[in-house]
């Protein structure tokens, strides 16, 4: 049953990817000639532009071009960048891994810190609540970009503890990798915690006011047990939804972070491809993006079902 559900969800994701990439292709198709001229630069003549269009196959019917691309994509061949000639599939994966290697640790730390802060604030109230809310407020107020620059100036430029720019793959040097992602992770985490801790706090306050909590208290169940075994589990469901949204939002924030820290990630790659009108890259990024969102939503739903029996499919 569960496998069938997963397959159905993935199938829906694939159909969505086909639709979205088709629409993207239609939108891009209006600028094929512009892109050819951009590639040729200032000395683009009508003859050279036409020759390049022919070489790239952009003079063929749109539907033929799209299905050519789709046929390649289902076999893992997303074409090559019209500017760099680099294969799109492996490059997108490589860039995605860089971004994920920053986002995943940031998300995990965000979840842990947010749950601790939210639960602490909701269960203790008073000063704890004010501190928790204060931290959230500061996270909201301080712009991520400013924070990033400030941290770089202090920890990279002045103290030289961490690199100011660049990325080292984990496989090359785990310690250098950790150093290269530290400031980006801190910046993303602070923004994430500001949002998520407030959500966890609110949800926990609601849960702790419910009748079952009062009943458990009257039976002498400890506060820790009530919070951890009962309330937190119930509060986790909406928190998971916030987490999945936070994950997607971090992808957006990653563009700024990648620019400031010169990380060769997915965000800056997508941004540059859009600026240049690199059609195969934009198509590849769109396809991977849709699939990524589908998978994240699916994982969120599965986790929800695991935490909350009422949410399970039958």
């Amino acid at each position, binding site marked *: 049953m569960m496998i069938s559900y997963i397959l159905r969800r993935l199938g829906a994701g694939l159909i969505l990817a086909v639709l979205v990439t088709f629409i993207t292709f239609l939108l891009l198709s209006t600028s094929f000639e512009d892109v050819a001229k951009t590639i040729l630069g200032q000395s683009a003549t009508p003859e050279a532009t036409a020759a390049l269009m022919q070489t790239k196959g952009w003079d063929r019917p749109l539907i033929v071009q799209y299905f050519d691309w789709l046929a390649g994509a289902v076999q893992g061949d997303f074409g090559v960048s019209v500017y760099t000639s680099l294969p799109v599939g492996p490059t997108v994966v490589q860039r995605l891994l860089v971004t994920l290697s920053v986002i995943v640790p940031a998300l995990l730390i965000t979840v842990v810190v947010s749950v601790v802060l939210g639960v602490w604030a909701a269960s203790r109230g008073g000063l704890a609540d004010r501190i928790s809310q204060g931290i959230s407020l500061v996270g909201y107020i301080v712009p991520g970009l400013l924070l990033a620059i400030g941290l770089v100036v202090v920890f990279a430029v002045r103290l030289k503890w961490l690199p100011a*720019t660049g*990325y080292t793959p984990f496989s090359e040097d785990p310690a250098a990798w950790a150093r290269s992602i530290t400031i980006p992770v801190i910046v993303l985490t602070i923004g994430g915690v500001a949002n998520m801790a407030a959500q966890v706090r609110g949800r926990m306050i609601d849960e702790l006011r419910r009748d079952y909590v009062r009943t458990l208290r009257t039976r002498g169940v400890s506060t820790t047990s009530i919070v951890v075994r009962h309330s937190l589990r119930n509060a986790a469901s909406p928190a998971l939804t916030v987490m999945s949204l936070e994950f997607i939002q971090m992808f957006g924030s990653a563009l700024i972070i990648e620019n400031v820290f010169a990380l060769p990630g997915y965000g800056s790659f997508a941004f540059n491809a859009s600026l240049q009108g690199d059609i195969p890259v934009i198509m590849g990024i769109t396809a991977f993006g849709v699939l990524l969102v589908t998978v994240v939503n699916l994982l969120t739903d599965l986790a929800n079902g695991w935490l909350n029996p009422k949410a399970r499919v039958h």
Partner: protein
Amino acid sequence: MSISRTARRPFRLAALGAVALATALTLSACGGSPEAAPTDASAPAVEKDLAIAAVSGPNSLDPAQLVDGQQQFVWSSILDTLLAKENNTGELIPNAAESWEYNEDGTELTLQLREGMTFSTGDPVNADAVVATMLRNKATPGVVQVKYAAVADVVAEDDLTVKVEFDSFDPQFLSNLTGGAGAIGDPATMDEERTATDPVGSGPFTLDTAKTVPGSTYVLAKRDDYWNADAIPFKTFTVRVLQDPTASFNALQAGEINAATVQTQLLGQLGDEYAIQKIEAQAVAYLDILDRGGEKWPALGDQRVRQAINYAIDREGVLKGLFNGVGMVTEQIFSPYGKVYDEALNKTYEYDPEKGKELVEEAGYAGETFQIPSTFLSTTLEPTLTQAFADIGLTLEWVPVPPQQAQSAHLSGDYPLSFQFTGFNSDPADAASHYSTSGYANPRGYTDDTIDELFGVINTTVDFDAALPSYQELNAYAVEQAFEAPIVFVGGTWASRDGIVMVDDGRSSVPTVRLFGVSE
């Protein structure tokens, strides 16, 4: 008459040496006897690792797709070019070709290659390699192909002699050989898939693919068997693509790179350990008048309106307010480092909006509205230009255009005006680009008898110095006719550290590793 240049021997790029060489290696414009060759230079005791910031990496490393400009830092390190430009003078100098010679009417160019050059595979660089690359460039749609438009054929005369045959003399061709059109590919591997990303070349470096992340970091390792290895005092050359100026500045301060362009307002934060090289002009910012003949917008066909636009722009204000004073104001588009540039022309249109307004009214076009593409290039200057037009009784309407359509919009014929930044190439190339009927800045192909006559001389005079009066006349005529409204030459400042120095003052304008040296 034949025009020739003769080879000089390898020169060293150490800072002091470069200054001395700049003086010593001046080439005569009309050929003749060779200049005194510089003395042999030995390699520095310790080669350094050079790491610089660039705003863009190379699109492709395929010889037929090479883009000039900052992308050249990477590809010119792998692919040697036939000619080069002298630091601090911008004169053409031998590189892989040790001499060149045109026939009398400029329809044949004979290039004599240097002996003993090899590709990184060990294969020899010979006339066949150059011929194969040039013919491939001519046949392959792409950036370089258009630079071979006048080339009829390329043949190998012998193992080290290449003859390029032209349909007609191309005044830009020699200068183009310092860029992508002059790169030499390896015929044995040029058609392989790897050529776009990891080509075999005969340049001073090879690409370290294990350490390179395309689009982000390019790591190049020096070839000790490069013919001019002594002139390259760097063990490795790393080009970091840092589009964000703050990231670039932080990387420089943190010691992750040792040379970068730095915004003027940040220079004060750098200590004495940094070497600063100011470049006064590396590109021209100008308002291009696309409909110079007034075919679709009659107002712009009236010289008085075009002149009024020139009077309306407060160039000093733009330079100080928008470019932090880095650069020079200008009323002409030719490079101030070239021979065509005439300082006296910069007094033609002193800022005088009142006079501009009078000219517009006299021409009867007050109240005209012009649409202009708003692109990533123009954003900063848009309010200033809008106000300048308003001051003379005209209206400027900015139409947002996505980056990938900026070029199409400029060429489309749908707009009467366009704002542009254009890097310098060479005087012949700049003349053709701005004023010839096929020039990028002149998409409607405007011409008149004077222009035709001047290009008639320029395009048939092989000796640049003999053609110089025509170039200068063209410049003066273009300024007087106000075919464009040049605003400023945009400058820049390089900061370097760790014993690295920039050894060019901007006159070379060819971004290669040769711009850098080491301090003794």
